[in-house]
Structures are given as C-alpha cells and as structure tokens.
C-alpha cells in the first residue's frame, strides 16, 4: 500500500512541477517557446493519465471530509489528525472513568444489598456466579 502512495506522490510532484514550468513559459511568452509549450501541454496530459492509473490502486482509501475542510481553509491537515488523536484519548479516558465508577458502584451496591437482603443476594449470586474482579 505504501508503494501505491509513493507512486501517486511521485506522479503528483511531477505534475505540479510541469504545471509550474508551464506557468513560467506562459508568464512571459515568446514565439520561440511555442514548441516547449506544446511539449509541456502533452506532458500534462500524460501526467493526468498516470494519476488516473493510480486511482485504480487506491480505490479503497477513504479520506475524511473534515480533512478537506482543513485544506480548503488553508490549514495544515495534520492538525486534523492531531485533534482526532487528542479527542480519541480524551474520550477514552472519559469512558474509562465511567466504567471504573460503575464497577465501583456495582460492587458497593452488591455488598450493601447483601447486608439488607442476604437470602435474595445469595440466590442472585447463585444465578450470576461471583462477580469478576473489578
């Protein structure tokens, strides 16, 4: 998969460089540079063909739309990755906190119910078995 990305990156870099050179030729056009311009135009078409070929190798890649928004705003898309990771870690910690709290609550509830309803809790434990260690 990494090879496919490298291949696409290489083609895109070549394409961008060709477009840049095309821009330079066009920015101050001289009659003698018509041949070069024609050549660059055909390079651009072959570049598009190469990129089109890369599309088949990367059809199963999904790009999050939020990353597009970052690029459209002129922001570094790595910031999106950073925020995703930070959000995931924060949510992970939040859920862990909830699980830990609920586990403590459960063990406390069972112990307190065992004091008030000892027979029922004995039956409950017979059905459910012993609680897994929290």
């Amino acid at each position, binding site marked *: 998969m990494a090879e496919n990305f490298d291949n696409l990156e290489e083609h895109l*870099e070549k394409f*961008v460089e060709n477009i*840049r050179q095309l*821009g*330079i030729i*066009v*920015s*101050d*056009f*001289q*009659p003698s540079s*018509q041949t070069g*311009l*024609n050549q660059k*135009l*055909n390079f651009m*078409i*072959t570049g*598009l*063909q190469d990129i*089109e070929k890369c599309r088949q190798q990367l059809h199963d890649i999904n790009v999050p*739309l939020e990353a*597009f*928004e*970052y*690029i*459209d*705003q*002129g*922001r*570094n*898309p*790595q*910031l999106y*990755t*950073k925020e995703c*990771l*930070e959000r*995931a*870690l924060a*949510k*992970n910690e*939040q*859920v*862990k906190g*909830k*699980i*830990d709290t609920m586990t403590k609550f459960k063990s406390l509830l069972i112990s307190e119910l065992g004091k008030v309803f000892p027979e*029922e809790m004995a*039956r*409950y434990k017979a*059905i*459910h*078995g012993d*609680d*897994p260690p929290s």
Partner: protein
Amino acid sequence: MTEIFSSLYGQNDGQVPPGSSTLGFGAGRPPPQPPAQNQASMSAQIPLQLGDEGPALRRPGAMNEPFYLLREIPVGNELTGNTNLITHYSLEHAYNKFCGKKVKEKLSSFLPELPGMIDSPGSQDGSALRSLIEKPPVCGNSFSPLTGALLAGFRLHTGPLPEQYRLMHIQPPKKKSKHKHRHHRPQDPIPPETPSDSDHKKKKKKKDDDPDRKKKKKDKKKKKNRHSPDHPGLTGSQPNCSNSLR
C-alpha cells in the same frame, strides 16, 4: 381477527403446529405448566435470540423466580474504553509525532514545494476541494494527447501576462529564523566580545574585505618606508594601530 390474519398470510398459517404458536410469546412469559415439547422449543429459541455461546448465564424466567429483567453480565474480553485504545492499536508513534510537538498551522508548511498562495481559503478563488464533491466535474472521457490541429488552439500572444494572472510566482513570505544568525557568528574569525565591539568590527571587516588591492598597496608603501631612514615613528605607531584593532 384470525380471518384477517389468514387472508393476509394465506391458508398455510392455519396448519401451523401447536407448539410453534407459543413461540410468538416472549421468553419471560412462559405458560404456567408448559409441555415438554414447548420447553425444548424455547430452549432452542433463546440462544438464537441472544446469540450466546458456551454456558448461558441467563436462565429462563421461571428459574430466575425472585428476579426479573435479569440480564447477562457483559463478556469481559470485549474491547471497550477501559483499555487504552491508542496503545491497543499501536498508535503511540503517531500520537507522539502529532501531539508531542507543535504542528505548524499553515498549509504551506505541509506542502512546502507547492507553488502559489495556498494558505488563502479555497472558497476565495474557487479551488476548494469541497466543490469537487458538491459539483463533481464532468468526466468519463479518457485523456488523449493533443495533435497538431488541437495544439493550434494554444498559440499564445507574445509578452508578459497581465498582473491579475501572475499568481504562480507569488510565494508566501518565509520568516528568517534567528537560528541562522547564531550559526554565522561562531564562524567569524574574530571572537565576539561585547555586542557594540562586535558590530563595530563587522563594519570594519566589511570595509576591509572590499579593497584588497588597497591593502597590497599599503604593504608596498610600508616596505618602502622601512627601507627609508627618514620615516618617523615606525616602531611606535604600528603596535598602537594593532592594539586599536584588537
């Protein structure tokens, strides 16, 4: 009611075996004295509903006599937020890479080789990627090289482009880092003393570097003066000059 039901689902429904009619009821409401066949069908149905494997912790409602709404304890080995998911999916390296140090804000720092002003919002010049999704380009034709007749359409007028189209050459201004200055200072042959002294010496050095020929001429003159006995204060003046330079 049964007529409507049979008219909807056909006459075959009337031939349903008696045991299967009990399957329509919930598992928590078994008849008070279910027949042996009915129990067997229920026990076969419960695992299908719950998708259990192995020893079922949940028993039929009749056996959980004092309790109701008794559910299974969730399986312990399920992946939840209780585990550190970044470690679980081996993303520590990515986390340290992106969250450990400051990521530069601008798009040009991510794509430094891309020409043009790419830090401005794409909605301004119609280059937004979102427009590709909202208004996808009409495509489908394969790319074919331009022949001579088609290339005739690309004959351009000579001369420079108008100002408004010269966007390709505009690059975002790059900040000069102080780091470079620090590198230059140690390479200087004269060791730095006080900041005022070093500045002064820099100026002097610039002046000295330019007229190399003048130096040579001066040296020649000095040599000539050494030979002449009339030259005043040769031994006294020279050390003073060197001291002032230092």
